[in-house]
């Protein structure tokens, strides 16, 4: 039989071949459970319970500062303020792992880390009271001012880390962000670059479960925020953000890796925002007490206190003494803040450029009430 005019048919069988080219898992580190009991051996810095007292005092001091700042705002003496109630362990744990010569790039809820780094309560109150001098830190001169637009400082942190790497320094940049920030392009762009260039950068996400009214589940479909590191080729891990030992341990390991040429890391610290987003927010509009109340169990201050008390290094008297001491320091700062007069009006112009351009002199004069007008 002849078949004419018909090309032989060629059948191609595409053999399916699937191989696994990448795998990842995300570890979660916790040393103290919600009742303040050790879940296992503690890291070296926490081996002696008394060595944890500075961390505890740092958290108490932050909580005292937040309470005072909110009170000042409620009585019309401070501007809008973002309390860190419930997440003090993230800032204290991260900052306490830093060396003085590392650089902190904080967000707007990171007073715990800033206070630990040596930014003074007076400086913080000045800033939140509407005075730029509050960001002219006398202490950590290279630390950045807080970032308000969310995540846009992660590229700065990569730049700071790049500067350190180019100079061959054994230093690192530490950037603090929130869960909402991990949805932004700046975060991905910076982490990606930090991965490619193995920058000495540690990004710590204080995942407090809420970005104003948007809960964590509505922020990302990823099981964890830490796994966002995987796409950038850098290690990502979770720590219990209400366990200051876990935060410090995780951040210390990441900083050590960064300073020794091992590159960047992302650490997601799981915590909870026990208060409003800011004093301008009313969280009852989007979450009720039934959602919030369970999170008071295991909050960072009570958790470490239970551990310290159980180990005999902290008493009720110590607590009262420490609270009074912190309140006294903060009160003194508040009085100093309230007694600080405003900057001279010219300050608006004086720091715009290194030298005031000629074209701005007439505006400055007009602002100062001189003869020149706005022309």
């Amino acid at each position, binding site marked *: 039989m002849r078949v004419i005019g018909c090309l032989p048919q060629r059948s191609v069988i595409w053999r399916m071949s699937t191989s696994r080219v990448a795998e990842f898992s995300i570890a979660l580190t916790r040393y103290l459970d919600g009742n303040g009991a050790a879940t296992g051996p503690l890291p070296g810095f926490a081996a002696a319970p008394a060595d944890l007292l500075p961390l505890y005092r740092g958290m108490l001091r932050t909580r005292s500062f937040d309470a005072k700042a909110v009170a000042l705002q409620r009585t019309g003496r401070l501007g809008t303020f973002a309390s860190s109630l419930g997440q003090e362990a993230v800032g204290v744990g991260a900052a306490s792992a830093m060396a003085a010569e590392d650089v902190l790039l904080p967000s707007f809820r990171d007073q715990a880390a800033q206070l630990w780094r040596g930014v003074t309560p007076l400086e913080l109150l000045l800033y939140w009271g509407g005075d730029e001098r509050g960001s002219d830190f006398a202490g950590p001169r290279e630390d950045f*001012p807080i970032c308000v637009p969310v995540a846009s400082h992660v590229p700065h942190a990569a730049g700071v880390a790049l500067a350190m790497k180019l100079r061959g320094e054994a230093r690192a940049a530490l950037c603090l962000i929130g869960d909402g920030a991990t949805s932004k392009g700046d975060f991905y762009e910076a982490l990606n670059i930090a991965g490619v260039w193995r920058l000495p950068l540690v990004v710590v996400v204080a995942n407090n479960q809420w970005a104003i009214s948007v809960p964590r589940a509505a922020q990302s479909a990823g099981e964890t925020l830490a796994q966002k590191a995987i796409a950038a080729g850098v290690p990502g891990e979770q720590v219990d953000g209400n366990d200051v030992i876990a935060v410090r341990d995780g951040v210390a390991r990441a900083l050590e890796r960064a300073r020794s040429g091992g590159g960047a890391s992302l650490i997601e610290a799981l915590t909870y925002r026990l208060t409003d987003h800011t004093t301008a927010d009313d969280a009852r509009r989007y979450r009720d007490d039934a959602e919030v109340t369970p999170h008071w169990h295991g909050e960072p201050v009570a958790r470490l206190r239970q551990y310290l008390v159980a180990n005999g290094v902290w008493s009720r008297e110590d607590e009262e003494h420490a609270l009074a001491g912190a309140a006294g320091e903060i009160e003194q700062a508040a009085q100093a803040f309230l007694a600080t007069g405003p900057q001279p009006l010219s300050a608006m112009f004086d720091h715009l450029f290194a030298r005031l351009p000629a074209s701005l002199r007439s505006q400055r004069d007009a602002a100062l009430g001189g003869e020149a007008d706005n022309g």
Partner: protein
Amino acid sequence: MADATLVEAIDLALARAMQEDARVLVLGEDVGRDGGVFRATDGLLARFGPGRVLDTPLAEGAIAGLSVGLAAQGFRPVAEIQFMGFAYATIDQMLNHAARLRTRTRGRLSCPMVLRTPCGGGVHAPEHHSESGEACFTNIPGLRIVVPSSPRRGYGLLLAAIRDPDPVLFLEPTRLYRAMREPVSDDGTALPLDQCAILREGGDVALVGWGAVVREMLAAAQQLAEEGVAAEVIDVATLVPLDAASILASVGTTGRCVICHEAPLTAGFGAEIAAQLAGPGLLSLLAPVERVTGWDVVMPLPRLERHDMPSVARIVAAARRSLRHG
């Protein structure tokens, strides 16, 4: 003194700045091995090495943000954005951070960075490659905006921008990159920032503009001269801070002004110059201020772009309209 195009002059200025100051770094997309898509960074990687010339991943916002971090740490980053249409992604960084770091920290931290980007039309480039977006940046306090109009001015102004202790947006007219050669002395001499340059003197009408359109302004002045009209040609050069005094002085003599820019008319930077003339300059005006600009349209693709860009004929016509008054 060798002849150079604008893009060669930019390259010379970058090399000079890197040679004289170890803090100067060049970073951006394809600035290393490729020498930049326009070759503005040609040869820099070979000469200065990968520690000073950094090919970045493709992320404009982060290129600007990295530069903020580097600058705050004492480096002098010179970042390249490949085309102005992609520079809009840097506005958040330039506005919220670069331009206000000094103010926010009361001088504790500062941001001596330069963000370079080609701008403008006329080279038949693809979509988003021919933007004149300077006015999107001119309302940012604390940011300098500098635009050269020739190879020699590109060399001197870029050196000044890199040496300046504050952030500078440096716009390089794409159309001028290879349009002409002129002698450029690579002697490290900067041109002054914050000052207009009077490129041609004349007492009848002032033509005021910046960047590539300065060529059309000069050609228009030549044509007007043949009609017996003496046009003064002012290259604004630094848009912000604006040297309004030089423009007001010129219009004080001429009483007439034609403002030229490629960017759209409405709220283009020419509007600020017009406002200066309507304010302190009002009593010198003998005629309404004329503006010859791009229309208020989306930058057309190449087949129509020349109908959007200010032409010599439009500038001459505007000058003639101005001269009919008084």
